[in-house]
């Protein structure tokens, strides 16, 4: 796979670098772009419309690029990987999410992917404030099956929690999802997801919820419970709610974390990145401290042991990890570069989609979710 990567802060810089990278005769047919909402995304899409390229992109909450030129984590900029993929081996589609449920949105993506290839693998990005990630994943699996390979993340907006975007080479959309489908006969798509967050405090019961909207916890307004227990102000939410998500206990299966992505101060309700079922038993949860970096590095090494060959890596890391670990977040990302020394781009998300080996894909919060792209050797 031939590819080039770069990072920049402005659309002007983007156009300049793009032109530089293609001046040597390199003709990419796809690009993956993660950009801050500080970048003029309208202007960028206007430029993309002028070139013959398929784009898979979204807004971020901090971006990172690790390649042989630089290893940097930035805020307010953009990262891009320009790819020359086998024609006919992939496709990209953006679907507007207005007027339909997250499940229906997912269902359309699943149907499209299954029509595209007999054995597809999907990368998916969705607007982070409008989408119920769990429903989106359920919708995709509805037709594509539980065992479909799928990784992705929910778009961010630099922790402003106002407007998050997905974009293609033609469209910028603040409510929708974009999917990139690969033919797995030509590309190996493998990935991992790890969290390290731990349960804290006593069990609580969700006493009123609808989908991803939680009205009351133990009979008290959900917002009051959060403020009370964490000793924070209205204005600290939802950001603090991303760092201290609810851990939903699922007897007989893996517990899941659900981060707050929005609040309604008047109605005292919380909106989560995924479904929080009525009657669910939950606890608060938190990063146990800086030792989770070592835990993540161990998981990365384990993944490397099984997948040493790669062309490029994409990382979806929860923005809460960045908040909790600060500059030290670079230590767990750097572990990837140290192992593979292959281009890695990624962004800090409002939610992650992915799975470990032999597990069905799920929607997560607080995880370090990474996917490896590798062109199969005999299909050039």
């Amino acid at each position: 796979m031939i590819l080039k990567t770069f990072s920049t802060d402005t659309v002007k810089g983007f156009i300049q670098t793009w032109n530089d990278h293609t001046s040597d005769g390199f003709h990419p047919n796809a690009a993956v772009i993660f950009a801050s909402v500080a970048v003029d995304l309208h202007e960028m899409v206007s430029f993309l419309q002028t070139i013959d390229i398929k784009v898979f992109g979204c807004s971020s909450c901090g971006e990172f690029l690790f390649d042989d030129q630089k290893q940097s984590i930035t805020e307010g900029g953009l990262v891009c990987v320009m790819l020359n993929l086998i024609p006919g081996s992939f496709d990209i589609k953006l679907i507007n999410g207005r007027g339909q449920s997250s499940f229906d949105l997912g269902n359309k993506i699943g149907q499209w992917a299954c029509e595209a290839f007999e054995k597809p693998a999907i990368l998916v990005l969705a607007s982070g404030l409008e989408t119920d990630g769990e429903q989106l994943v359920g919708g995709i699996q509805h037709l594509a099956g539980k065992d479909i390979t799928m990784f992705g993340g929910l778009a961010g907006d630099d922790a402003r929690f106002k407007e998050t975007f997905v974009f293609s080479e033609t469209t910028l959309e603040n409510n929708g999802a974009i999917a990139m489908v690969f033919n797995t006969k030509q590309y190996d798509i493998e990935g991992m997801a790890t969290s390290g967050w731990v349960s804290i405090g006593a069990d609580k019961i969700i006493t009123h919820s609808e989908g991803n909207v939680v009205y009351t916890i133990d009979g008290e307004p959900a917002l009051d419970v959060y403020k009370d227990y964490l000793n924070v102000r209205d204005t600290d939410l939802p950001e603090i709610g991303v760092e201290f998500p609810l851990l939903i206990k699922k007897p007989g299966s893996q517990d899941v974390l659900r981060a707050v992505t929005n609040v309604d101060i008047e109605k005292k309700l919380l909106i989560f990145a995924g479904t929080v079922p009525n009657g669910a038993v939950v606890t608060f949860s938190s990063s146990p401290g800086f030792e989770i970096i070592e835990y993540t590095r161990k998981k990365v090494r384990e993944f490397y042991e099984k997948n040493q060959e790669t062309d490029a890596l994409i990382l979806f890391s929860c923005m809460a990890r960045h908040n909790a670990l600060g500059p030290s977040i670079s230590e767990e990302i750097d572990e990837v570069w140290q192992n593979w020394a292959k281009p890695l781009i990624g962004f800090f998300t409002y939610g992650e989609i992915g799975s470990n080996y032999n597990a069905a894909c799920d929607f997560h919060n607080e995880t370090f979710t990474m996917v490896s792209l590798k062109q199969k050797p005999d299909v050039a």
Partner: protein
Amino acid sequence: MSHRILSLIEEISSIENPADFAGKKRLVIEELKKIKSEHDNLHFKYERSSKEKSIFSSLLIKTSDDLKKVSNNLKVRAEELSTLLTTIPAYVYFKDTHLNYMLVNQPFAELAGIPAAQITGKRIQEVFPGYKNDEYINKEASVIETGNALYDIEEEIEHNDRKRWVYSNLAPIRNAANEIIGLIGISWDITDRKLHEEELRQSKELAEAGTQAKNEFIASISHEFRTPMNGILGLSEILKNTSLATDQMDLLKGIISSAENLLVLLNDVLDFSAIEAGKMEMDYQPFMLDRVMEDISLVMKMKAAEKSLGFDIFIDKNVSNLIIGDSQRLRQILINLTNNAVKFTDHGKIEVHVKQIDHTQNKATLRFEVVDSGIGIPPEALDSLFRVFSRVKQNKSKLIAGTGLGLSICKKLTDLMGGGIGVESTPGKGSMFWFSLPFTLSNLHKQRTIVAQPEETTNFLKKFVLVAEDNAINQRIVSFHLQKMGFGVDVVSDGKEALEKYLAGKYDLIILDIQMPVMDGYQAAKAIREAEKGTFRHVPIIALTANAMKGDRELYLAAGMDEYVSKPFTYEILQQAINGLLG
């Protein structure tokens, strides 16, 4: 970090030649950048720790409050549970996976006669010395092994020289990790219930024995009643055929009518008793419907004529004629309904209509309608009409004669045969009683003959009948009827004489009473059939009996008899039976 800054300062201070400074500048800047980065990281960690400290402190305090609440709740629950265990009128125990008692409630300790605390850790045999029910212990082990609860276990235990029945339920107890850590058993003393059940069983047996005795009593008195009834009716018939003055004839008719009513009463009581005892069994045989209707016509035309009423039977052309059913019971229902019709009608006529309302390949449902032009039934009486002892009051003082059992018996009979019965009536204009019955179609299809007139009386001149009957009155009645039919009659008083006469003479028909001295009717019939063996002879034998209970017919047929006539009988009934054999 401060140590590294100090050594940097020291290093820079030690430079005396400005030219040397230029060479070290890059290294110093690199080192300062590193120090800044580390400082930033440490600063972040400090800030982060302060923030986390605040949040975790708050979480800790709130969690501590939560735990206090949980702890209080647990205490309350524990007290509730303890109260429940103490007050529940059951023996409750907890056992570990080795089936040693962990905890028992007060009633259990009282049953064992050992303080509850001393039971902990013991096995069942130590608490109840001599306990030997391995089956129960195996069930407890199975609950531990499989995790499946077991219910409704009953066992008899003996403790302190007292036997008790105990009913138990067993369920596993699991820990938070869902592992089985023991079981809970809840047992109740059901000794009283068991004793009660035993009493009930004995009562039921007694009641059944009583019912049996009642049935036998009824069968026995019915026999005792029938013999004199036969006498009264038979002699009255004979008397009716002598020359009597008009007032004497009226008195005689009163005697006959009373006797007939008494006979109906007797038959109803017998049937009702059989139905109530669940002993009424249907006898499904192929029969010709038109023959049954002919019989009804024969009997009822005469009765109707006595009140100057018309009586007609209409059978639709499509009605199946050769059918399988209980013809005797059909006859009984029809007689009952037509009798009622005659009884409650003073002017006009009675009509019986037979229709086929449903028909499949081998089944047909027939509907019989008995229409009269009588007094009718008030609407308020219709609902209760088919109930036991229901009788319609005509006015405050007068009840129409009857037992009140007839319609109730008809309903029970139609129910037993899978049919239905009902009535439509307009007071003052008349009533229509109907009933429907399902019949199986017989394979043989025969032409139905429309019943209009009774058959001509067959003349049996020059034919001889041998009659064996021990009762002198009955001898007279039978002889009278037979002679009237044109038979020559020889009468003997027991079966032995009958056999001798049979062997010596040549008869066209033999009529045998069943209960006779010396040799009864069964033995006589068997002996006659024995004598016929190897010959081509078969003299028809009619049993004459007061035993009218179900099942008797099979006995007569088994003894080699061809027909039976139940006492008391009329001329017509005897004639029908004879016609069936010789006609």
